[in-house]
């Protein structure tokens, strides 16, 4: 599905990820059909759609997390800064350092807060000594708005934090490896409203440095945090455009039905 406004945008904003005719198969199931989408740098892009529509699947294609599923097969082109991420020469490990991910359920490692954040920088050799590592950890925790709460108990286990704090810890962990793109798969679905609003504010701040792609079930959330919204339905990308446009004046009747709560 071609969207005219996308082409208009290409003129103004820098493109980060370009996906063309992406197909994903899980065994015999055709989960994603012909999805083409352009994701801009320093923008929050929201993927919305009913459960099982393929938005999370598509998100996981962007950092090749689908590689871990034996039966999954991806076709089509996904370019990050013009380079095909499914090229044979690409090592998914390097890709994932550039494209960080935050998962639906907060999943801190059962280690200390410090070790959680320091793990990524350590395995990528980003710090030469302890002082540098400390600094990376502090910056990441500050970015994730967790520093004030966590600075006195960096040695406490990450799993002992509250749900919202755990999710922010996971964001800090993703941010610590200095990615260029941050993928978030329903980051607030396990959080209460207060924690949700904290994470949303955080996403808005992160936009200054990263290209953020967020999958969400809450249309209010998509409307609040994103600049661009893509609506998925039954594996198809139905509509993609400015968030305001999608929510106020959708082109496709399916989008309108979903937004008004008639399908989904």
């Amino acid at each position, binding site marked *: 599905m071609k969207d005219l406004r996308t082409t208009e945008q290409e003129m103004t904003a820098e493109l980060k990820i370009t996906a063309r005719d992406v197909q994903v198969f899980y065994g015999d199931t055709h989960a994603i059909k012909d999805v083409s989408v352009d994701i801009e740098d320093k923008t929050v892009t929201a993927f919305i759609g009913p459960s099982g529509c393929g938005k999370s699947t598509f998100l996981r294609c962007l950092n090749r997390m689908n590689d*871990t599923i034996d039966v999954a097969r991806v076709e089509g082109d996904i370019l990050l800064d013009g380079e095909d991420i499914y090229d044979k020469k690409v090592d998914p490990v390097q890709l994932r350092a550039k494209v960080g991910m935050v998962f639906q359920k907060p999943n801190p490692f059962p280690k200390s807060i410090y070790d959680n954040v320091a793990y*990524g920088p350590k*395995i990528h050799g980003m710090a030469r000594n302890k002082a540098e590592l400390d600094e990376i950890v502090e910056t990441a925790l500050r970015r994730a708005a967790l520093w004030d709460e966590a600075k006195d108990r960096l040695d406490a286990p990450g799993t002992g934090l509250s749900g919202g704090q755990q999710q922010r810890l996971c964001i800090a962990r993703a941010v610590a490896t200095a990615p260029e793109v941050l993928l978030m798969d329903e980051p607030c679905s396990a959080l209460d409203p207060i924690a949700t609003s904290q994470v949303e504010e955080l996403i808005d701040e992160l936009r200054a440095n990263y290209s953020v792609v967020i999958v969400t079930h809450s249309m209010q959330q998509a409307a609040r945090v994103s600049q661009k919204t893509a609506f998925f339905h039954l594996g198809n990308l139905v509509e993609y455009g400015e968030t305001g446009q999608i929510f106020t004046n959708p082109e496709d009747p399916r989008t309108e039905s979903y937004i008004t709560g008639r399908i989904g």
Partner: protein
Amino acid sequence: MTDATASNAAPDAPRKGSLLDQDDRTRRRNAAEARFKAYGIAAVGVGLVFLIALVSAIIFNGVGAFQQTFVDVEVYLDPEKLDKQGNRDPADLRKVSTFGYKPLIREAVFAKVQELGIETEIESANEVEALLSASAPAQVRDFVIANPDRLGDTVAFKMLASSRVDGYLKNRVTRDSIARDKNIDAVHLDLTDALRDAGVVEKTFNLSFITGSDASESRAEQAGLGVSMLGSFFMMLVVLGLSLPIGVAASIYLEEFAPQNKFTDLIEVNISNLAAVPSIVFGILGLAVFIQFMHLPQSAPLVGGLVLTLMTLPTIIISTRASLKSVPPSIRDAALGVGASKMQAVFHHVLPLAMPGILTGTIIGLAQALGETAPLLLIGMVGYIATNYPDGLASGFLDPNSAMPAQIYEWAKRADPAYYERAWGGIIILLVFLLTMNIVAIILRRRFERRW
């Protein structure tokens, strides 16, 4: 909504009735539940009764093995007889065999009897020999060779009583039971009673049952489990050293890296099957491969360890895979998500979380191997090993030895009822080891169990 309820109510009216009386259905349901609970309690009760019967039988029969009857004898080490050259040279002292010591000892005992003024029908020193273990002369001889300068002194020894005398003090041997026994007469038992009253014969804790080596058929009082315990120890070293790394490596590969296809399915089925193969099959395999084909020494703990490794591997692989599987996939996602390679994700995150489960499985596997007897019978680790302790590591692995359960089996086969008691005593020691290992496994699991 209101319409719907109204139309539903028409065919069968809402049930009326007090909550305070139970209707028939509820009563029947509750009765069924109560019956089921009763069956459960009965099942647990039967299990407990068996357990109590087992434990009390073991303790009742085996506790005697930890006590032994000793006779205090003061022996005059006559230099005339023991060192005819009179030069105190150990080489010359060795030339006097235990037969040279026998007269000295029996005279010492006889002298003691007369000194105490005990009235007995025994008239010559020759007859008191039946009170003492056949090991007594060797004990004195070893002392003399070790301390040649004590020749000419009168030295007090604590000598093992013969197994009949020991059995008499433990109520195993009675005056009726010795009616046709060539080794001992009622006269001896009378003498034993008198000596016990005088404090010369007494029953004390028997450390050498735990530390000693096996003894011949006629010296049950001397036999101990120590050497076969070392045999088991060296076997367990082999089992641990081989099965833990091989088992963990195999299960990590199968669980985390191997592609899912027919071949890995086949391997998986076979591992489960191997876990159910009777242990004697592994024994004959070990006999064919390790001894007949590879010519490894017979009866060696090394071979026993190899055979038990084959047997333990499936257990360890199955429990390791189960504990790897129980690590939530979100941890793997998290590690991969920050750009860890598959191996980093496994070794930094999954393996540490699975470790308590792996260790528990390993300890349970080892405990199983420790109690395993059948394969050892086939590779000859059940011989009569009355030698002393292995000196050094190499001899520990390669010299013929026995293992605890095999030693127990061997004792249980022997004719002297004193050995029967020792077999039960050996079972107690074996069970103590197994219980300790299981408790360690439980503590490890409790301590390292993580919640997420």
